[in-house]
Every structure is written in C-alpha cells, then in structure tokens.
C-alpha cells in the first residue's frame, strides 16, 4: 500500500473538526466532485464516496480533529484519515457489525448503528485500521482502478 512519491497524480488534504455535525458530508462531497471531474467510473466513485462519508462521520462523531487525504495514483485511489481523539480500545470489536459506542446526539443524526467501519471495508479493496487508545486513530483504504468488477475481494 506504500505510494511512491512520483506515482501520486494528486494529493489533496482536508481538515475535519470533531463535533462539527453541521458541515458533515461536505468533505466527501468534495472528494466526489474531484473524482467526477477527473472522469473516474461511476461505480468507483460511488464506492469511495460512501466509504469516505463513513470515515468523515467517524472523525466528526468520535474524534477531536482529523485530516483526510485523497491520493490519486495511476493504479488506485487511496484515502488516509488520521485523527486525534479518544481512539478505539478494541479495533476488532469496532469492526464487528452492530457494535457502536454512539451517543444520543450521533444517533439523532442518523448514524451510530455500528455499520460504518464494516461498510468501509465492504466498499474498499484494502483497509487498514490502527488506533492508540486516548490518542487517535489511523485509517486508510484503497480502491484499485483495474479491478472494478471485484466488489468484495476480502469477503
């Protein structure tokens, strides 16, 4: 998953403020716009947009702040999200469907069903999630451009 510097066609970084529910979705919207203008296939844009929205919501819901980066390379698209905040004590548990630590406020906004991380995994070709409890979380995922048909390579 390492990207050689000369292979990056575009790198764009967005800042996300934790708890900023008002603008939630705007960064994913921006990512979608960039990819649409670049002319990527709809199917790929849909998958990465959905995964990015889930990742953006996670920072807003659970972290203090974070940065979301979009990388475009000739062979894959990659999103990297680095946040500062409470982190995830048990990453495996967080990956299981239905597990959630969301509070009332998050649920009111239609999130917090414990579907976010599994849904990122479902839409991505590769996903890495690491976290330091009480420090922050690192998430990255990749969608390959040359294997659009394979929806669930890791299932």
């Amino acid at each position, binding site marked *: 998953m390492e990207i050689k510097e000369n292979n990056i066609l575009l790198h764009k970084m967005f800042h996300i403020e934790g708890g900023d529910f008002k603008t*939630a*979705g705007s960064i994913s919207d921006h990512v979608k716009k960039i990819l649409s203008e670049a002319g990527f296939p709809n199917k790929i844009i849909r998958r990465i*947009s*959905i995964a990015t929205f889930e990742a953006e919501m996670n920072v807003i819901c659970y972290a203090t702040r974070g940065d979301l980066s979009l990388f475009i390379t000739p062979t894959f698209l990659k999103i990297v999200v680095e946040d500062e905040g409470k982190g995830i004590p048990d990453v495996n548990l967080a990956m299981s*469907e239905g597990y959630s630590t969301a509070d009332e406020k998050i649920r009111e906004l*239609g999130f917090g069903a414990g*579907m976010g991380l599994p*849904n990122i995994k479902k839409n991505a070709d590769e996903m890495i999630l690491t976290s330091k409890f009480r420090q922050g979380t690192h998430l990255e995922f990749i969608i390959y451009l040359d294997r659009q048909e394979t929806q669930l390579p890791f299932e």
Partner: protein
Amino acid sequence: MILKEVKDILNAEVVSGDHDLEKEIKCAFAAELLSDVLALAQEGALLITGFTHSQVVYAADLANLCAILFIKGKRPSEETKQLAVQKKIPLLTTSFMMFEACGLLYEYGLKTCAIQTENGNKGK
C-alpha cells in the same frame, strides 16, 4: 413508476425539484438511519425517510439515489432544500406515516431495492 406517480399516490407536496417529476423510479428504500442508506440502498432508488438534516442529501447524492420522500409531513430546512437543488435531488413530503407510505407505493407496484444483507433475504 415515475416520480409524479409517487407524488399522486401519496398526495405528496414537492418541496424542491419541481421540474424533475418525470424521473423514473425503479425501486425504493426506506430508512431512518443514514448508515443503512449508505450500506444497503441501491443506485437510482427513491429514499423514503423521516430524516431531514442536510446529511440525508449528501448520503443520497454519494450513493446515487434519485429522490427523497419525507414522511409524516416532515419538512426539510432551507439548508437541506438548497443542497438538494444543487445536487439535483428532488424532495417530496407526504403526510402519510412510514408504513402507509411504503405500503401504498408497494401496492402500486414499486419494489424494494435493498442490497442483500448478511443474514437477511434478498429483496425482490
């Protein structure tokens, strides 16, 4: 079914996107959770929901849904409306409750388009 038929069946009011009533609706998906919309709704679906924050428009746009129908007379904020206009996603509101709205559309032939869930049945 086209969006205008949905409007007529449910006596719905078009909140925004008047000019888009000829849009073809192949299937529908009902949810109060955006997580469900993002995980399960198929492209081109009509989203039936009571959720009116602007995030519903972002979710619908990112998942390529074609229109949003609010139930039990819920009305979106000005902000939600503006975003929907920008994203070209028509918004409708009906005074029917969720169950009735879904039931009526189903009766008139509109089908579900939820993607198969892990332990559930495939929607047909």
